């Protein structure tokens, strides 16, 4: 097994940016990955998403996109474009300036690619871009193989007028894209960030391995929307890290529609007092798709508020996993942490695993969690049908209402509509 794994790094090494300290950081990360191997069900955190059984192997690193793929990608990007946004496009894991907005005039925002920063020998801190995670196997794999991504810096006090739209397009079959983005939001700065994963027609059985490291300085605010619409036979494994300074605010929403197998692992750390987090998500899964959202909210500082609200709708043999852990460290008094997860099962074969965990080491806190799972309410369904709605339309109306309560959390009207429209597409495509 380890030999095969090293083959992956050897094959990719020539194409990976960065030498010296960067290359050493990659080697260390890869060693750490190999020591742990692919996570499996005997590791508690991966109990419901056994990558040894479900993923089996990491596909070889994708080559850059072909000319034809770029042309297709342009159409895909156009189809998901958000009006007025600064669009940044990665195709098969490589940044494409020709498909992206010109950001040189954006005030308060510095945009660089991960590749450029890693290759800049004059930057003594460049290898740190591969750190910042918790050292878990898949995150180490990402650090070892990250080929590109965005490095965004928002200046103190900047209120970015345009949302940043980071689009990942997959065009290939049977390969991996490994991306990593590092986003730093200065004191009191305000940003809207949309991350979207989409597939070009014909892309299939590919793997997206992504990491996002976001730091919010004191008083910074981030509206974050993540839309996962990968090919239905693809894999997406993402690690996201958010660190919140004092009085920072993060409102994040994650929608999972696609991918045969997906894991979105989010770690939110409160490092300063009085910060606020709202994290909402919706998993819509049919077929035999498996979507895992695993969150760790780490209250290290006092007086912070966290709200987690997740909805899953499962059809056929869809399988949704929600693991939510709230940790309150000693001294993080006046923590207010709540977590709610609800699932709607539309078939007898669908499966939901909800695992809420609270670990509280302070004595003056307010924390709670709740979880429900059930079928559509027959009484409501009959009411709608008795008013003339055919059964599929009646179901769709109830499902839309169910997920709508989480989608409501998106602050921007346009982005809320984007998410709602994606959910409606899923409903319309149900058999």
């Amino acid at each position: 097994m380890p030999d095969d794994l090293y083959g992956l790094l050897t094959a990719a090494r020539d194409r990976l940016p960065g030498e010296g300290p960067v290359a050493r950081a990659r080697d260390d990360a890869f060693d750490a990955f190999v020591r742990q191997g692919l996570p499996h069900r005997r590791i508690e955190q991966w109990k419901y998403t056994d990558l040894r059984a479900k993923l089996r192997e990491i596909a070889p690193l994708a080559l850059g996109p072909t000319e034809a793929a770029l042309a297709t990608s342009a159409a895909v990007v156009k189809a998901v474009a958000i009006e007025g946004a600064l669009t940044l496009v990665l195709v098969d894991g490589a940044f494409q300036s020709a498909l992206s907005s010109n950001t040189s005039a954006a005030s308060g925002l510095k945009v660089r690619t991960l590749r450029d920063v890693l290759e800049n020998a004059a930057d003594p801190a460049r290898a740190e871009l591969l750190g910042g995670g918790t050292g878990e196997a898949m995150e180490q794999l990402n650090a070892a193989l990250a080929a590109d991504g965005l490095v965004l810096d928002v200046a103190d006090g900047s209120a970015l007028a345009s949302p940043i739209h980071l689009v990942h397009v997959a065009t290939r079959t049977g390969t991996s894209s490994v991306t990593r983005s590092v986003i730093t939001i200065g004191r009191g700065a305000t940003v809207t960030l949309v991350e979207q994963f989409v597939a070009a027609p014909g892309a299939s059985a590919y793997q997206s391995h992504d990491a996002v490291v976001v730091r919010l300085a004191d008083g910074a605010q981030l509206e974050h929307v993540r839309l996962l619409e990968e090919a239905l036979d693809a894999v997406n494994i993402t690690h996201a890290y958010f660190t919140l300074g004092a009085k920072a605010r993060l409102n994040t929403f994650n929608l999972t529609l696609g991918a045969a197998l997906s894991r979105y692992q989010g770690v939110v750390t409160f490092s300063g007092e009085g910060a606020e987090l709202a994290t909402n998500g919706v998993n819509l899964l049919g077929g035999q798709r498996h979507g895992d959202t695993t969150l760790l909210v780490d209250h290290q500082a006092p007086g912070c508020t966290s709200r987690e609200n997740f909805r899953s709708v499962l059809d056929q043999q869809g399988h949704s996993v929600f693991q939510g852990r709230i940790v309150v460290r000693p001294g993080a008094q006046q923590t207010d942490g709540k977590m709610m997860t609800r699932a709607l099962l539309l078939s007898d074969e669908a499966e939901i695993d909800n695992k809420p965990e609270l670990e509280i080491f302070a004595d003056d806190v307010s924390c709670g969690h709740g979880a429900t799972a059930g079928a559509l309410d027959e009484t409501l369904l009959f009411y709608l049908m008795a008013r003339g709605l055919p059964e599929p339309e009646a179901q769709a109306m109830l499902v839309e209402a169910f997920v709508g309560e989480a989608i409501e959390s998106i602050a921007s009207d346009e982005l809320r509509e984007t998410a709602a429209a994606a959910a409606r597409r899923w409903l319309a495509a149900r058999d």
Partner: protein
Amino acid sequence: MALLEVKDLHVRVDDREILHGLSLRVNRGEVHAIMGPNGSGKSTLSHVIAGKPGYEVTEGQILFEGEDLLEMEPNERAARGVFLAFQYPVEIPGVATMNFLRTALNAQRKARGESELSTPDFLKKVREVSARLNIPQDMLRRGVNVGFSGGEKKRNEVLQMALFEPSLCILDEMDSGLDIDALRVAADGVNALRSPERAMVVITHYQRLLNYIIPDVVHVMSKGRVVKSGGKDLALELEASGYAQFEDAAA
């Protein structure tokens, strides 16, 4: 041809027979009241006509305009013109009332092969009807029945009835949970819909409602059958003497 004809209907729920051979014939233009004690099967009859799941018809039939209603899905029945005003209208959080009304109306029109109503026409119609029923516009922006009082929920049912213009309205215990003022508003709304083309079946435990909605025919149900039918005076008679005599008659 009768608008609704129920013939020798036997209905079971969980292996227990609730209706034991019920027959009923309702013509266009008529208002029928069905009265009876609790447990006599009044609500079961309304549910079976509307197509609620969970009831097994073991014998008999229900014809609507001569066609077999039991073969149709609840939504097909609605599109044909069957409307059940629920005893307990459900709350549907997250579904705006306006959106619900429009979707339902257009689904019915589509099933009948009619074109969808344009937005201005739809809004005009809703405004007209809701003004008549004293339904404030902000109620229509809320989730369906969410946070509505008992009276508001019943008025919302009457609003739908007025909007969908069914040919058969079944009112299931419309008076339950209503004070006298709320009852009057709802009953006025129903009376405004009386027409030679439309029939109504008013199911009630108490005679009170029939002071406001005057029936042409009154049926008394007991133990799963119609045991007596008569004119509107029968309701008054019942009010005076109670249901006990009919329970004996059905036994």
